[in-house]
């Protein structure tokens, strides 16, 4: 307990903004803010239903997990949980009944949160309306349905422990590292996973895939996916959902809507400082698409894309994402690019920028070969150097999305 207290005190001292947070807000307000930094609402709420009432399906490569109700409802929620129960769940991934939680609940990240913060979240949840609502059962196949298996997983891949500041780094960097690696759990999407769903540590924040979306590399340094973003641009992106380089779509939209747009500029700046300190390995040059593919892609692009994204791929910054230099476009994994062409995209409306600027779907209009051609063209033009997309990849994703939509 003593060491925990010290860690908390150290954290509070890290940033003056963090300190202001602890002294000027009530415990519930503090909990609200911390819950927002963890985007708890995003996973624990079915869109349109009561916040935190659970039931939202989380597709994983292993089956569908349903987020539990974390309102203080007596029967279906966590109304009978004590602060210690809650702490054990968040810090160690163990439920009130002693069963293991699945890491779809990001306790491997949340474990970095100090007790004081976790208690504040508890107090915040306790202050919310209680909603009795049972979550549907998970659809994990045996033996994964056997939660005791998670003990072994934890042994291999889980290190419990509150974030320990690096004294060699600035308080701002430490605050950022804590937010990114702890409550922000950015690695849950942006880090590639191994066969059993654990982070590949060597590929930390270098891009991952989730629910048929490719989450791009969010490291900066010299070679990272956001190497050309400034601190201010990172803050702007997290606050408004868009910046001069890109706009948030899909899962990141929720993160911005429920989490980062509600955070203080100081915290967002700290995250930027941390991300900008992370380098990525240099990329090797990609194969160029065939000249015939480039010719077709250029023509398709001129007809369908250039009105918004401009003939030279520069787009309209903050409105229509630039394609030149985009970490979504340049991602070695083309899933997001293909998916946006197939389904269209919608930038997240935020308090600062409420317009959901949208791109239409081209699934009805372009064949798999045409989508492959235009995707290959944009990935190989204007300084972009990502590998070409094959028709088969498009066909397969189109099919997968069709099947997912049918469910």
């Amino acid at each position, binding site marked *: 307990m003593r060491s925990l207290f010290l860690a908390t005190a150290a954290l509070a001292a890290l940033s003056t903004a963090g300190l202001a947070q602890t002294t000027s807000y009530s415990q519930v307000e503090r909990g609200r803010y911390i819950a927002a930094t963890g985007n708890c609402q995003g996973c624990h709420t079915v869109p349109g239903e009561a916040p935190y009432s659970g039931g939202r399906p989380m597709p994983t490569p292993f089956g569908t997990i349903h987020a539990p109700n974390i309102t203080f409802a007596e029967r279906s929620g966590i109304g009978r949980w004590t602060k210690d129960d809650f702490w054990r769940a968040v810090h160690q991934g163990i439920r009130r009944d002693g069963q293991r939680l699945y890491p779809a609940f990001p306790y491997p990240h949340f474990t970095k949160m100090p007790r004081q913060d976790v208690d504040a979240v508890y107090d915040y949840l306790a202050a919310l309306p209680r909603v009795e609502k049972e979550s549907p059962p998970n659809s994990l196949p045996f033996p994964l349905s056997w939660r005791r298996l998670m003990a072994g997983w934890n042994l291999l891949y889980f290190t419990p422990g509150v974030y320990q500041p690096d004294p060699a780094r600035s308080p701002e960097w430490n605050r950022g590292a804590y937010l990114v690696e702890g409550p922000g759990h950015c690695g849950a999407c942006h880090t590639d996973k191994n066969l059993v769903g654990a982070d590949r540590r060597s590929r930390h924040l270098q891009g991952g895939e989730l629910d048929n979306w490719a989450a791009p590399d969010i490291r900066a340094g010299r070679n990272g996916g956001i190497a050309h973003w400034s601190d201010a641009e990172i803050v702007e992106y997290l606050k408004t959902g868009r910046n001069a380089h890109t706009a948030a779509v899909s899962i990141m939209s929720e993160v911005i809507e429920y989490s980062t747009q509600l955070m203080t500029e100081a915290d967002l700046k700290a995250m930027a400082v941390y991300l900008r300190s992370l380098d990525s390995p240099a990329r090797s040059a990609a194969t160029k698409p065939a000249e015939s593919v480039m010719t077709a892609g250029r023509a398709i692009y001129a007809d*369908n894309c250039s009105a918004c994204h401009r003939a030279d791929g520069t787009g*309209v910054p903050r409105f229509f994402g630039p394609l030149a230099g985009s970490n979504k476009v340049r991602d070695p994994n083309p899933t997001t690019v293909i998916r946006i062409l197939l389904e269209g995209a919608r930038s997240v409306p935020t308090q600062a920028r409420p317009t*959901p600027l949208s791109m239409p779907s081209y699934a009805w209009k372009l064949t798999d070969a045409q989508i492959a051609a235009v995707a290959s063209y944009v990935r190989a033009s204007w300084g972009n150097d990502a590998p070409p997309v094959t028709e088969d990849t498009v066909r397969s994703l189109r099919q997968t999305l069709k099947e997912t939509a049918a469910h």
Partner: protein
Amino acid sequence: MKKLPPVDVVLVGFGWTGAIMAQELTDAGLQVLAIERGAWRDTPTHFPPTTAPDELRWYWRKEMFQSNARDTLTFRNNRDQVARPMRRWGSFLPGEGVGGGGVHWNGQTWRFLPSDFAAQSHNTARYGALPEGMTVQDYGVTYDELEPHYDRFDKLCGIGGKAGNLRGEIVEGGNPFEGPRSAEYPNPPMHMTFSQNQFIHAARQLGLKPFPGPSANLTRPYVNPLGAQLAPCSYCGFCEKYGCGNYSKASAQTTILPVLMRKPNFTLKVQNEVLSITRDNTGRRATGVTHIDLDGNRYEQPAELVILCAYPLSNARLMMLSGIGEVYNPATGEGLVGKNYCYQVMAAAQVFYDDKFTNGFVGAGALGAAVDEYNGDNFDHTGLGFIGGGYIANWTTNARPIETHRTPEGTPTWGSQWKAAVADNFLTSTTVGAHGASMAYATNALDLDPTYKDAYGQPLLRMTYDFTPNDRAMARFLSARATDIARLMGGREVKVVLRDGPYDSMPYQTTHNTGGTIMGTTPANSVVNRYLQSWDVPNLFVMGAGVFPQNAGYNPTATVAALTFWAAAAIRSQYLRNPGPLVQA
């Protein structure tokens, strides 16, 4: 009929005026419900790029406009004729659906001249009594009073242009005749193309002062004061009669709805048509509206405040159907609802070049250059036989393949020679147009048709309208001035397009129908007071160009919007504190 839970405010219709009013009144904390008879429409769902520019679907098959299979109006030129239903829109195109006509406007965003608001007193003072039968009157509100509200609309939309009169100082490059502006336009003007440059050159040779047309087609990326984002125009030439797929044209969808639709105290009900305004037994107080859904279910919607935000023709009809005020009778001069219906008078001269490309398909609804020397009372009308006027402009709004086919004088109107002439001139011609005012006459009016009914069995609106002596004299004058400019634009030949004969309801001109619920200074000369509040029923307000006592020589949208902001401000600052008449009769 099912009675619904009451709301603070019910808005009838949800276009520009409905959206502005909803935004203002929800900001004041009121519970606002808007009822729109058409469907929901938004950029990504209804007119994304590659779907928006579909000429057949949107214009020729009229998907953008009010369904005249359900409700139309009957038309006649004069009272000696029998009015017949317009079964297909032609001369004007009333909108329907969320955003109303503001979805398919061009974006030409003008302020009326200070003297336009005082057309009766100003012209009488300068030229003596108005002619027999002309029923022009003052608005009851001044340009100076409206200026802050014009300014708000400019900023809401991100209008591009060049000020000509900044706080009383005349600025080079802008319109020297405009009323003083409190601020420069929020965005620069559009990029002029070959045709505008020829027009500007020609106008200057005549000693005129050309300036860029004020544009709600965005000239650069813009974030408005509500945080809504409008993107730069791509000059695709699909504005008028079309929704914009690039978020480049100011409309309710691009400027207000992203904010409004998220508010918990705003509700929008679509595909419900309001049938009448209900009143209590004194007749002096509106109790709400009745409406009907697509399945024929009827509802009574109680409200503390009823605001008509539908198209002007529909607002006038709804008042008539509800028995509020007396319908105007031209024979006796009695009654006010339906009085002073006005339209607009256009004239044009087309210029044909041999080897110069005008490339009209590189256009935008408000891409143009104009001169204002012949508008309003900017010139001496002594001995001319008319009052008012219009701006003369060269717009490159479109060269849409089905619609656009200028041909030189003497070309057959059909057949292979016509086709060859269309092809020959498609890329090499342009038009100098005059956009003229319309002065009110006793003979032009709206009332209810005695014979024809809509889908719900309610009488159609009947329009009686023809060009007036003032219109004809003004059109001849403007057409000559436009031709003067056109002849100096360096083309091979000029073709003068005159609007002769009686007004024809079929060829498209403008959707600038005005009057019918006119504003004014006393209950004896107007339906609504200077705050657009009904004289008869003080908790009923009427928005839209129907309140114009006569039309000015400009496109109406900015004035409609400024009047809506002005009325909303009066409701917020005066009416809510002390509900009742805002002007004592």
